[in-house]
């Protein structure tokens, strides 16, 4: 008799979590399991695979409400530790973006600029419980006559604070190299001239979207690890491009899927939400994201078993091509090669530099694993899946 196709539901997994019988492994452990036992057996044995990534994610920020003051104000311009926040929302609501530099920052006037403090640092300081100087100005209205307030606030004082990141956890990103004759300072880090180093930013086989390349288990409502607390995927992120070029194994070889995520700032841990200063480029925020992948069938088991040597990315010249908007691939490299420390480029060994922390990514995958095993974290069924590749739909 033919063996029935194996399937499992999220409800079944949650029941196992409550019974303390769930089997959870991290994505790097799953690589070995699938290699040894094959996806069929692996799917039957493993319920959940945990993933993780920790890297600068510029498209991040927080919605804050700082509460009504006496007399009341309709804040039209707001600064948090001198960093401007977007105040074009309701009277005492603001959005503080990760890449906003402090207003008096010298920027790139002395190149490369330092970008010592920005929105990402404000968010980190809030989570760390530090006092933040809040300044708000207004034009005054009949209902909100106050023209200016200055006060010190902590996260605990804020009635509402939510991290809401329009684009996180990019599924694949370029490997950056510099073919020009001078050192350049980019969002991919410092790139030395004449292909002096090759920078990359992903956790490879641990990365959430590499473990579910067609987004078969993720969408609005998926519960995740975000900044040390529980958070949610709330939809595709900006620039989500499911139709990016993919290899034969289905894994994109260029920037593809992205996540929009949210979580309660008040529950987060400063270790997992850190301000970033990119020399010559700007401020940002390093965010820790981990997504649990439910092994609903053999296909998903197969994807979670994909390893660094099966994941490829394009080498792009940031010296000349990229700034002109003409990023063309100078070749493909695997993450196994990138992680080895050197890649072969144009007949030379070029040393590689990660911007994404593999150590922290693994820590996230392990924390998420522990949460699920201990019954502290139940999986949540997505209410609307992320848009997938048109090639997958017709498959």
């Amino acid at each position, binding site marked *: 008799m033919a063996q029935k196709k194996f399937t499992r539901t999220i409800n079944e997994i949650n029941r196992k979590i409550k019974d303390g019988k769930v089997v959870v492994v991290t994505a790097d452990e799953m690589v070995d399991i699938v290699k040894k036992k094959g996806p069929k057996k692996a799917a039957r044995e493993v319920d959940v695979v945990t993933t993780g990534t920790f890297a600068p994610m510029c498209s991040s920020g927080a919605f804050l409400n700082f509460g009504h003051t006496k007399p009341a104000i309709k804040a039209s311009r707001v600064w948090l530790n001198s960093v401007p926040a977007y105040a074009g929302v309701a009277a005492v609501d603001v959005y503080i973006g990760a890449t906003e530099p402090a207003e008096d920052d010298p920027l790139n006037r002395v190149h490369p600029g330092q970008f010592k403090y920005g929105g990402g640092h404000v968010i980190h300081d809030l989570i760390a419980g530090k006092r933040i100087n809040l300044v708000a100005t207004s034009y005054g209205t009949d209902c909100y006559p106050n023209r200016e307030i200055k006060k010190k606030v902590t996260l605990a004082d804020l009635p509402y604070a939510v991290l809401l990141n329009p684009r996180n956890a990019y599924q694949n990103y370029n490997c950056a190299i510099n073919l020009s004759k001078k050192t350049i300072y980019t969002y991919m880090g410092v790139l030395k001239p004449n292909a002096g180093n090759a*920078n990359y930013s992903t956790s490879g086989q641990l990365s959430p979207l590499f473990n579910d390349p067609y987004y078969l288990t993720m969408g609005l409502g998926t519960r995740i690890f975000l900044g040390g607390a529980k958070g949610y995927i709330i939809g595709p992120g900006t620039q989500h491009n499911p139709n990016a070029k993919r290899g034969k194994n289905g894994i994109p070889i260029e920037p593809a899927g992205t996540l929009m995520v949210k979580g309660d700032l008040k529950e987060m841990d400063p270790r997992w939400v850190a301000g970033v200063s990119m020399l010559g480029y700007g401020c940002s925020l390093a965010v820790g994201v981990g997504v649990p992948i439910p092994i609903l069938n053999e296909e998903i088991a197969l994807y979670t078993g994909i390893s660094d040597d099966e994941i490829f990315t394009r080498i792009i010249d940031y010296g000349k091509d990229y700034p002109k908007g003409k990023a063309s691939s100078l070749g493909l490299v695997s993450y196994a090669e990138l992680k080895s420390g050197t890649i072969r480029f144009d007949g030379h060994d070029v040393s590689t530099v990660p*911007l994404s922390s593999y150590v922290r990514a693994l820590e996230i995958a392990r924390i998420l694993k522990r949460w699920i095993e201990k019954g502290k974290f139940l999986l949540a069924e997505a209410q609307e899946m992320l848009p997938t590749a048109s090639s997958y739909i017709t498959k």
Partner: protein
Amino acid sequence: MYSKMLSLRFPKTIVNEPVTVNLVKKFDLSFNILKATIYPRKEGLMVLELSGHRKNFQRGIRYLKGLGVKVESIGQDIRRDEDKCFQCGACTAVCPTGALYIERPEMAVIFDREKCSACELCVSACLARAMEVRFNKSLLY
């Protein structure tokens, strides 16, 4: 951006010259004075952090030396704030001595102080600003 901690010893003939103002005006440098004293014999000592373009910095130092100021850079020491460092590896792009390196396969970023030449390139290249310059504070007290 270039920045160094310096000790300046002024002969008594120029104690009253507005040298720091000139550093700002003529050479576009900025400074942060940590200590300024005039000793009984009218000699001056100033400890300051001077920052700006590397070229301007060098021109500023030449200007000071031309006035007869004794300029010395203060013994510096690089440290990593282990709480701030999130183990990414971005700093390994700039470290010329290999003091910052990645241990594989764990991908842990190691800082070997023995190999560090205190060139300070990592200080502003570190994403988390975890690499800190400590200077010999004995001059301040």
